């Protein structure tokens, strides 16, 4: 009866019928389809734990570190909430990378899904932005140094570099203003942008339906499809449960620590490095010599990275004949990029 009351006022059964009619193809590479909702799982956990942490966190120079210490030691189970937030951030970004990789090698970005890919790349950048801004918030020595380095890198971009750095830092240097600004980005600006873009991304996916991997499409065989609701969703819930279990286990057994409050005048601590998802970029910058011909080595590195990013963004347009020889090159490029990222990350650890 309640169902009828709601149906009369919202017409929600239309949604259920749509979700019934939406099918998810079943084939060898179907496991990639789970990565999208896994990202949403971790994102939801971030939002909830983020809400909880923001109840006690104080985003000012004088109190940031102390408020995180208070969350860790005084607030009941605060250390678990913080640990879950920290671990879920890493797992979410790892899942975004996996999602991206799966889309790339199955060429799910090909026509008509180019915009879905581009919005996805933008979402990746926002996710990395979340990670970067969140890293500063505990305001300990390591996060201050990482932010100094991270906001210095855009300076190498010619013409606009200094402006970008000043915009990010809220001034010439990293100060308390940077902290408050990063907090504003982390809890206000980035969430708003993320949810707006996510809505576009998800809407496009509903419009186009699930794509078939090129290899499967070319074989021309008839592919069975499962109704999204309830068949595929129940399978997704199983994946979520396992991921959730892994997250909580990691968070409880390996909670993050908190360094002493940042000293703006102190030298960079030993062993400074960014979060793992930036390590491959960090290492790339390190291998460039300080000068190449007449140009600053950093500038060359940053420009190359930006160029790579732009090519990455335009991948569906570049890979215009995915079935042909050129298409095979782009598929191989996915593996090449994976190898590069992993190798650089491992190298940076030594």
């Amino acid at each position, binding site marked *: 009866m309640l169902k009828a009351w709601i149906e009369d006022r919202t017409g929600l059964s239309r949604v259920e019928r749509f979700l019934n009619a939406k099918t998810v193809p079943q084939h060898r590479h179907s496991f990639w389809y789970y990565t999208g909702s896994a990202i949403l799982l971790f994102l939801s956990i971030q939002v909830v734990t983020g809400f909880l942490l923001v109840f006690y966190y104080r985003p000012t120079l004088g109190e940031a570190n102390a408020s995180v*210490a208070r969350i860790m030691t005084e607030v009941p189970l605060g250390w678990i909430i913080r640990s879950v937030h920290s671990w879920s951030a890493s797992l979410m970004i790892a899942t975004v990378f996996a999602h991206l990789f799966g889309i790339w090698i199955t060429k799910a970005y090909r026509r008509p899904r180019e915009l879905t890919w581009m919005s996805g790349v933008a979402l990746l950048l926002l996710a990395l932005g979340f990670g970067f801004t969140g890293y500063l918030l505990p305001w300990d020595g390591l996060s201050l140094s990482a932010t100094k380095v991270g906001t210095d890198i855009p300076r190498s971009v010619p013409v606009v570099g200094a402006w970008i750095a000043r915009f990010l830092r809220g001034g010439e240097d990293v100060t308390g203003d940077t902290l408050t600004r990063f907090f504003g980005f982390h809890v206000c600006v980035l969430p708003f942008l993320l949810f707006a873009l996510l809505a576009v991304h998800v809407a496009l996916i509903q419009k186009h339906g699930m794509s078939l991997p090129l290899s499967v499409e070319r074989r021309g065989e008839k592919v069975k499809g499962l109704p999204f609701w*309830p068949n595929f969703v*129940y399978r997704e819930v*199983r994946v979520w449960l396992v991921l959730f279990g892994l997250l909580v286990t990691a968070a*409880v057994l390996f909670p993050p620590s908190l360094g002493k409050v940042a000293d703006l005048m102190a030298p960079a601590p030993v062993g400074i490095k960014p979060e793992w998802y930036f390590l491959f970029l960090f290492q790339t910058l390190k291998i460039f010599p300080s000068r190449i011909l007449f140009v600053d080595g950093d500038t060359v590195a940053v420009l190359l990275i930006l160029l790579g990013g732009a090519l990455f963004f335009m991948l569906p347009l570049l890979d215009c004949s995915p079935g042909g020889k050129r298409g095979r090159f782009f598929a191989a490029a996915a593996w090449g990029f994976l190898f590069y990222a992993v190798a650089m990350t491992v190298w940076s650890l030594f």
Partner: protein
Amino acid sequence: MAGISLLACLLVQAALPPPPAPFQEAKEAPKASQERAAGPEEQGPPPMDARESTGIYVFIAWIWMAILVLLYVLGLKIREVDRLHGLGYFDGS
């Protein structure tokens, strides 16, 4: 039979006092005399006594047990809806 014993397990689990309680109580006691951030270079969560760390392992074991039960129930549910799909139950009204 399996379904009934499963239901019984779930009811018992739901009725059990939530595991975090044992180590939560103990944490309250040392708090009054705890120093904050002044001494150590790095600070982790407050040191736990044996009761608390056991509590943590109990909590994790409980979570995984619950997850395994839910995975099993979902498996049954998936078989059910797959069968219905095969019979054409979801193909329009």
